[in-house]
Every structure is written in C-alpha cells, then in structure tokens.
C-alpha cells in the first residue's frame, strides 16, 4: 500500500510497444517513489525510455503492466475522463516547444486550464494575472505569444502550468530551445517554485541543467540505472 505522503509511487511498471517485429519493451520493471516537495531531474540518452516514462507519469499514456499511484489514486483504474480530471487537479505541464496557442493573448493562454476546470471568467483572469506576475510578466497580460521572446514564452508556459495550483510540475526539456543565460533564469524560477512546496520532475539532456535539481534519476535501456542526490562537484 502506498504511504500517504508519496506523491508518485511506481512499482514494477512496464511499457511495451507492439511493432511489426513483435513486442518492443521500452520500460522494464521501473520502481520509483517521489515525495511531495522533491526536485528531481530525469536524464538518459535518446531511446532510454525517459520520455515514455514522463508521459505515463503525466497520465497521457498508459502502462502495459505494473502499478502507478498519483496523489494516492490508482491511475490504472481510471478512464480517460477521470485521468483528465486528475491531470487538471494535480499536474502542470511545461514543454520544450512552449506550446502556447497562437492568436490568444497571454492571459487567455494562461487561463486556458481554468476554462476546462469550469472557473468563471473574471476569476480566470484574476488568477492568470496573478501567476503571470509571479513569473515576472505582469506587464504583458494582453500581449500575444508571437510578440515575446523564447524565454518569456517559456515563462508563460510555466505560468499556465501553475494556474491550477498543481502539486506536481512535469517539465520536458524546458530549456531545450533556450540560450544558456535564459536557461539559468528559467531554472532559477523552477527552484523558487520548488522552494514554495511544488514537486518538480524535469527531463533534460544537459548536466548543467540537471545540477539545479536535488535528486538525479538516470535511465538507460528502459531501466533506472542511477537514483541519488545531485552532487555538485563531480560531473554527473
């Protein structure tokens, strides 16, 4: 049984894709527990299964076998609508490509999750303005996403992830399209959010970025080969 404090608890989780050449295993017997308030970086080469793992954690994909509890709920037993509700309540996503909607101003972009949560309009706008202020974009409420810089777009995406007051942020290569100075700023923002009690799971290729986290999980060939605290001196 999962401990009440574990935000993520994964046991013997397997995922395989059906290919023409037969079943192809991507994740093999993954075990992982993440407590509330952790800041973990997930690393690994391409094809190591880390993206598939993140999709399953984000309830966007389903495991082939094994157990996954998110915030105490057994995700395996949930249908597509219940998973949507769980996502809405617990998780905020930040993508590599920012994925803002064009033709919408920043406030509307940030408020979009609240639309699906059934929050009334004035309340949506109030909360969107609040989180935009929190990521340092309080002056750009009515700007459009194509008129601001990449770093600013990623801040908007983070604001959108925050607007539902999630307990967990899943960031998939959030600095992949940004220069190193902007990346540092974004990571500083993540650290600040983590300091405020939000659990963060971050996928990255870059050791510099992973060094901002407090825990490092390394994937290789569908297995976790390393799981421990980040040590700043030795190269990870």
């Amino acid at each position, binding site marked *: 049984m999962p401990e009440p404090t574990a935000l993520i608890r994964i046991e013997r989780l397997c995922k395989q894709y059906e290919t023409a050449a037969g079943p192809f295993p991507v994740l093999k017997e993954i075990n992982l527990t993440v407590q509330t308030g952790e800041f973990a970086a997930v690393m690994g080469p391409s094809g190591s299964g880390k993206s598939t793992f993140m*999709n399953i954690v984000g309830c*966007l994909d389903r495991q082939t076998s094994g157990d996954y509890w998110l915030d105490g709920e057994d995700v395996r037993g949930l249908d597509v609508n219940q998973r*949507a509700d769980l996502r809405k309540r617990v998780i905020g996503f930040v993508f590599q490509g920012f*994925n803002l909607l064009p033709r919408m101003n920043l406030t509307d972009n940030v408020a*979009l999750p609240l*639309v*699906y949560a059934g929050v*009334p309009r004035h309340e949506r706008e109030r909360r969107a303005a609040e989180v935009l202020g929190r990521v340092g974009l309080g002056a750009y409420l009515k700007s459009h996403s194509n008129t601001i810089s990449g770093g600013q777009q990623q801040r908007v995406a983070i604001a959108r992830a925050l607007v539902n007051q999630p307990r967990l942020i899943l960031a998939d290569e959030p600095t992949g399209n940004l220069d190193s100075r902007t990346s540092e700023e974004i990571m500083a923002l993540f650290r600040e959010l983590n300091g405020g009690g939000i659990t963060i799971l971050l996928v990255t290729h870059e050791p510099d970025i992973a060094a901002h986290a407090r825990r490092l999980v390394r994937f290789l060939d569908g297995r976790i080969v390393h799981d421990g605290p980040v040590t700043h001196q030795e190269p990870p």
Partner: protein
Amino acid sequence: MISGAMLAEAWRAMGANRMRTALTMLGMVIGVAAVVLMMAIGQGAQDDVKASIATMGSNLFIVLSGSTTSGGVRMGGGAAPTLTVADGEAIAELPGITAVAPQHMGTAQLVYGPNNWSTTVFGTTPNYVDLRSWPLASGAPFTDSDVRSATRVALIGQTIVDNLFDSDNPVGKTIRIKQNPFVVVGVLASKGQSLDGRDQDDVVLVPWTTAQRKLFGTPFPGAVRSLMVQAASTEMMPKLQDSMTELLRQRHHLRPDADLDFSVRNLTAVASSMAETTRVMSLLLGAIASVSLLVGGIGIMNIMLVSVTERTREIGIRIAIGAKPREIRQQFLLEAIIMSCAGCLIGVLVGVGCAMLTHAMSQASVVITGSSIVLAFVVAAVVGIFFGFYPANKAAKMEPISALHYE
C-alpha cells in the same frame, strides 16, 4: 466547459482564417438560398393553380345532352333535347349529390342607357351560385319562385358592370336583354380568368325558365343543354359518375347496347391532375436545391477535417492541460454548427431577396412560407451536426502524445 468561453474559442478559430470560413459558409449560403427560392417558386405555382381551381367550384360534374343530326348536319354535343330539368331533379335525389343546376345558354345583346354589350346568358336555378362557390358582390340571387314564374330578373358579372354601368349602382336598374327588360337583382363577385383563360365575369345569370320562354325560345320546354352537378366529396366522384350514367340510361329508356344520348364529365379530374403536376414540379425543384445544401454540408466537413489536422498540436496541448474528449468534440462541433447556421441565416436572406427579385422581374408568383425557412434552418443545423461530427470525433479521439509531438 463554460459555453461563453467555448463560443469565444470558436469565434477565434473561425476568425483565424477568415477567407476560408467565408468560403465554407458560402456553400451553405448557396444551398439554403436555393432551397428557399425554389420552394417559394414552387409554392407560388401551386397557389396559382389552387386559386384557379377554386374559381371553378369544387367536385363538379357536367352532364351534356347528346348530339343530333339535322338534314345530314350533326349538331354536336348538347344539341339533342334529351336532357331535361326533370333528369336533374332525379340526379339530385342520388345519395352523395349535393346540388344540381341546369344550364341553358345563349348569346344576347345587352343594353343599358347609351351602352351595349354582347355576352353569354345562362339560364339556371338559384343554387348555381352556391355550386360554383360564387359569392355576390351586392344584391341577392333570384329565387325559386322567380324560376317558377319565369320572372325577368338577372344576376350580372363584373365585366358586364364595367361595360354597361359607368358609375351607377346596377342593383335595381333595368337592363335590356334582346330587347326584353330585366331587373338586375345582384352583382356577382369577380372570379377572374378560368384555367383555360376565359373571362368568367363576362356572364349574365337568369332563371332557366325565363331563358327558355322569353329569351331564346326552345321547341322542347324543359330540355336543357347541360346540367352542372356537385358531389359531396372528391372520393365519391368515380362511383357517382357510374350511378348517374345508370340512372339517366334508365330514364332515357336506352337499350343496353344503345349509345348514350348524353355524357357525364368529371371536371375535377382535370383540375386535380394540374394540381398534381405543379406539386411534383415544386417537389422536383426542392429536391434539386437540396443537393446543393448537401454539397454545402460536405464543404463544411472538408474544412473541419483540414482544421482538425492543422490544429493537432493545439488539441494535444488542450488534452494535456485537462480537456476531456467530450470537450474537444463539443468545441469542433460548435464551430461546424456556427458555420452552418450562420451560412443558413445569410442563405435565407439571400433566398428571400432572390425570390423578390424573381417576382419583380418575371411577375411569377412566389410565396415564401415560414415553414420553408424553418425547414432550411433545421436542415442546416442537422447538416452542421452530421458533417461536423466526424471531424470533431476525430479530434476527440486523438492520442495526446502523438498530438503533442505532431509537427
């Protein structure tokens, strides 16, 4: 999902590609306009025919007396003195017959003051006006006692009034018909043209006895050229035709193998076949117009499919931030319905405009009925839902991961 926000989303999505949205709607506009216009023209034609039929009177037979030969010259139908007013009275006894009126007609010159006019004079009974459903504009019909005593009284049609009376009220005035003074007791309401184009108002009605004894004379008193017979309902008419024929055959003492010396004609048959023709024509027009509505609907489906593919990534984002498949489907369906209903609204306006233009340019009757507009709206909404459903469902069933990674 809040509907206001959903409407705003749909508005934004349609506004993003204005030209495409407008062209998609154009298909719907043309389809609906075509349906409204064609139904208006069809209804107009049907109403015209109905009005013409109504002026003739409903469920009518005409019984004609047979022909005769005089010195080798055959005189044509109605010339033989075989059909009598007594025959008419016997026919009136048949169950299902509501009225019988004899017709004894001739041409006569009318004079009133300085004016004169030649017209057809019908000798008949008072119920003739009921039978032809022909109301009086003023005055009263002559009576059965006028028929018994062959009084010189006349009912005149509107054309007679126009040609003889300048501005006087004709009722109570005395006109001369073939030099005989007749008192005008009433004026018939105008009926206009008959189906074959005759002026139905160019007529004078007098008691048949007066026509026979005082106007035209006849060697066979009581014999008439034709009888007009009205049945209680259209359905009974074929059977009544047979029983009338049988009755007259007995009354005229005809041997079973002898030719009939009279003929019975069903006037409704012609009218109903004309009505049927126009009905089929307007149905055909509607059917052709519906095809363009269908094409408009397929246009919407086409564009919605393109739109769903273009917005694959957007759909992925929406699912990731908590949209349910149902909400994605509703959003795309709403877009399709808005496009088809907006197109329909414009189409109704265009259709009504075209109908008015058609009327102004060709004088053809067009009748825009509320039901055709309601029908167009219902069809447009159904088309929007039907053709919007497949693309919307495709969007809703998208896998979030592949949608997010779609380039």
